[in-house]
């Protein structure tokens, strides 16, 4: 045998048009990479701007005041008087009526409640009402102060500060704050109240507690309803229903429902749950059910796909052993399809979590100050809270809005993460 | 039934096998013809040629066996193909034996010499030899054309050969009884006749194989079975 020489050199130039193909291939690859970079860039920009705007919502400004025994004696257990006395005394030059008013304006709306709690003995200071002891306390500052401190305006002149931050604080107030800050009497600790408080007209008091609870109740209800109804519907359609015109019709309708605008479901909920059944308005119960209606098609479609992906050989194996259809499905097929079903349901939940429009229709947009304690209580939901706050005129609510969006995004990330974990954990290989 | 395998190489191999057997059959028949001719003509040169040529037949048999073995190993033949390949071994063996008998007869050429007794039976000898030669060529034809009827006809011819053989033997014996001097040569002729008769038997064997190849039944099972 002699080696026949390769007839042409092994380079791209030997084949007509090959270089061109290579060029277009690399072009497509770069275009794809560019698209991903662009979308990542938009996402990063969005997240960064929200973080920058909303990060502050998780912290609140507090000012430390020394409460003297004399002031306590004078106040005679009235937090309102005690607060004003303390503010007057602590801030130099708060003598005139105007200056006093400016001093009072530094304290936040809930500062009085903080003091009252101490005076009522609900918060231990070691003192008794009858025998006042001097103590110092971190009182929350007003939203204007909060804004000024977080924006670093306290050391500026009034005019500069107003130019930069459009603050309404006066030079006097700014000077007080500058002094307090240099004395270390101002701090900005983590604002737990933002996550636990109910909604409020006062920005420094307003929290997401109600919205989070409302969302949790709503989602739990939505999950329970849509998952079980959806899975059973999918199992029936996929495993038992005869393939005829009626089921084909059903299938088309389910697919259509999945793309119906969510507000339609809100209208449906309004008409049926509220008007027809007279269920409590604004409650998580109705919200959950409306969202369940909305996610149901998604869950059914995801569950059916997941059932279809279970190889028919598994069903045949069980049936050939003499298992009934029900046994084959529930012993073998559903357990194998469950991870996929759960993933679908959780992704549906994630969509429901971010849904505002249907909740507006059933009255979950109302101002609700107390976090709900049951599914029947009126409640807000996270996206609705975002919607509500974004409408508020006070500037401090802008920060709150972004903060609420951050919380919403965090929940979404958690849910999607849970979906991936569930899939990894229960996924069976064969 | 379609005649072509999906694997064409298999067809080619089976065709080669057929061709080899046909060629070997032709060679065997020629050997017999030549052997008889030199036997009758006391042509020692030709006899030697016949003896030497037997080696070619042996080689041909080895070739057929190797080829058939390869078909087994590579194609796992079934049904008619299986029967063909299996029968090929036997047919090649029978043809080789035919060659041996022809060689044997050729060997006797020098021992027979020119004796009158030979002249007297030479006619019958030629007749039985021609019969046997026809049988060989017919059976090969039956093989190549897969003709069961022809194979059965060959089986029938064997009876004629046997009959002639018996007559020849008794003729020779009576010759030898009257002319005791011819006993030595007569015995040689006797053996030659026996050789020819054996060749007929081998042709019969081949005919049975051909019948088996074509019908899947043994010839003695009867031909009426549906």
């Amino acid at each position: 045998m002699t080696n026949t020489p390769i007839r042409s050199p092994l380079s791209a130039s030997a084949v007509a048009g090959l270089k061109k193909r290579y060029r277009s291939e690399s072009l497509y690859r770069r275009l794809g990479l560019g698209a991903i970079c662009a979308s990542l860039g938009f996402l990063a920009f969005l997240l960064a701007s929200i973080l920058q705007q909303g990060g502050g919502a998780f912290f609140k400004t507090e000012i430390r005041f020394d409460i003297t025994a004399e002031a306590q004696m004078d106040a005679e257990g009235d937090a309102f008087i005690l607060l004003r006395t303390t503010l007057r005394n602590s801030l130099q030059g708060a003598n005139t009526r105007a200056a006093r008013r400016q001093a009072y304006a530094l304290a936040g709306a809930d500062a009085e409640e903080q003091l009252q709690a101490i005076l009522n003995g609900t918060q231990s200071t070691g003192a008794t009402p009858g025998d006042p002891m001097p103590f110092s306390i971190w009182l929350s500052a007003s939203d204007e102060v909060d804004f000024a401190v977080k924006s670093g305006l306290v050391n500026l002149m009034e005019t500069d500060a107003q130019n930069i931050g459009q603050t309404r604080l006066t030079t006097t107030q700014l000077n007080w704050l500058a002094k307090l800050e240099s004395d270390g009497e101002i701090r900005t600790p983590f604002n737990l109240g933002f996550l636990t408080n109910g909604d409020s007209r006062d920005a420094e008091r307003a929290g997401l507690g109600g919205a989070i609870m409302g969302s949790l109740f709503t989602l739990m209800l939505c999950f329970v309803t849509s998952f079980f109804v959806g899975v059973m519907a999918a199992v029936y359609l996929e495993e038992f229903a005869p393939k005829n015109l009626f089921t084909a019709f059903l299938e088309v309708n389910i697919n259509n429902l999945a793309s119906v605008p969510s507000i339609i479901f809100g209208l449906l909920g309004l008409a049926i749950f509220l008007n027809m059944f007279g269920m409590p308005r604004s409650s998580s119960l109705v919200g959950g059910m409306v969202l369940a209606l909305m996610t149901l098609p998604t869950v059914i479609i995801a569950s059916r796909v997941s059932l279809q992906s279970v190889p028919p050989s598994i069903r045949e194996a069980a049936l050939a052993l003499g298992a009934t259809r029900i046994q084959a499905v529930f012993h073998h097929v559903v357990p194998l399809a469950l991870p996929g079903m759960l993933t679908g349901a959780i992704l549906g939940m994630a969509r429901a979590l971010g849904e505002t429009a249907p909740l507006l229709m059933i009255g979950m947009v109302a101002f609700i100050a107390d976090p709900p304690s049951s599914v029947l209580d009126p409640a807000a939901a996270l996206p609705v809270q975002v919607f509500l706050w974004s409408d508020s005129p006070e500037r401090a609510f802008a920060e709150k809005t972004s903060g609420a969006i951050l919380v919403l995004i965090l929940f979404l990330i958690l849910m999607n993460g849970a979906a991936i974990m569930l899939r990894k954990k229960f996924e069976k290989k064969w | 039934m379609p005649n072509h395998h999906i694997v064409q190489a298999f067809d080619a191999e089976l065709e080669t096998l057929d061709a080899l057997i046909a060629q070997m059959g032709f060679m065997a028949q020629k050997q017999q013809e030549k052997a008889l001719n030199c036997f009758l003509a006391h042509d020692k040169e030709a006899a030697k040629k016949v003896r030497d040529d037997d080696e070619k037949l042996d080689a041909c048999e080895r070739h057929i066996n190797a080829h058939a073995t390869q078909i087994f190993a590579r194609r796992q033949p079934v049904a008619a193909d299986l029967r063909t390949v299996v029968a090929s071994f036997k047919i090649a063996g029978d043809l080789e034996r035919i060659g041996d008998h022809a060689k044997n007869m050729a060997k006797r050429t020098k021992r027979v010499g020119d004796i009158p007794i030979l002249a007297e039976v030479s006619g019958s000898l030629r007749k039985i030899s021609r019969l046997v030669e026809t049988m060989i060529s017919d059976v090969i034809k039956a093989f190549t054309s897969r003709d069961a009827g022809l194979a059965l006809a060959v089986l029938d011819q064997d009876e004629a050969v046997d009959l002639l053989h018996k007559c020849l033997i008794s003729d020779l014996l009576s010759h030898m009884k009257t002319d005791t001097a011819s006993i030595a040569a007569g015995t040689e002729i006797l053996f030659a006749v026996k050789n020819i008769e054996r060749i007929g038997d081998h042709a019969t064997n081949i005919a049975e194989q051909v019948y088996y190849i074509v019908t899947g039944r043994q010839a003695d099972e009867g031909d009426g079975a549906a």
Partner: protein
Amino acid sequence: MVNPMNLQSHSPMPTGITGFPIAAGASTEVAQNIRITAKDVSVSYGDLRALKSIDLDIAENRVTALIGPSGCGKSTFLRCINRMNDLIPSCQVSGEIKLSGHDIYGPEVDVEVLRRHVGMVFQKPNPFPKTIYDNVAYGPRIHGLAGSKGELDAIVEKSLKRAGLFDEVKDRLDRLGTSLSGGQQQRLCIARAIAIEPEVILMDEPCSALDPIATAKIEELIDELKQRYTIVIVTHSMQQAARVSDYTAYFHLGELVERGDTNRIFTSPQHAKTEAYISGRIG
């Protein structure tokens, strides 16, 4: 279950009928009991007639191979025997199939009970994604064949032993059945099928996904299993049919062209179509 089909008490079958022409002179086959009788069985999927009036007897404790080109109806026929065809809505079966004398398409028959008596092994090994133990124990569990854990253990062990798998997996019965090799998985499926003590085992191309060594092991196993069970095997490998079966039936375009002793079918088939198919000619 209401009115279960009483398949366990075998009615005495007339002996001396084989249904198969015995190759003259070539077979020493003694006349066999017939376990399954198919009479005039036709199957259609909608307008498509997949099987046309099949008459076929299947002998007890013998391996019957169904061969034929794709779409010839051999798998369809196999699936008629345990009524797996019932799963296909458009599938219509007519005619009569009797298992030990009982019409399996009779009105009082529960398919679950039928399938307990007619096991099946599929083309692709399909163990449940559960442990080896659970795979084998599933059938006995749903049929309530074991009264206690000990009995179930015994059934699992016996079945794995009969499937020739026990020694390979006895230390890892709690491992996933899907973690085994292809050949082991198929033997696990056989163990699973025999755990419910069927009378008949149907095999639908059981070796088509396996390598030659695993195939040989399955074939050896089939040879052992026929002592106890009646086996019907569909195979695309004619060599396999020739190796493992006692009887062979050749299907072509929904018709049963020829059936008979495997030895005879593979040496001298009587029908030209059979001959063309098994010898690899264009048919």
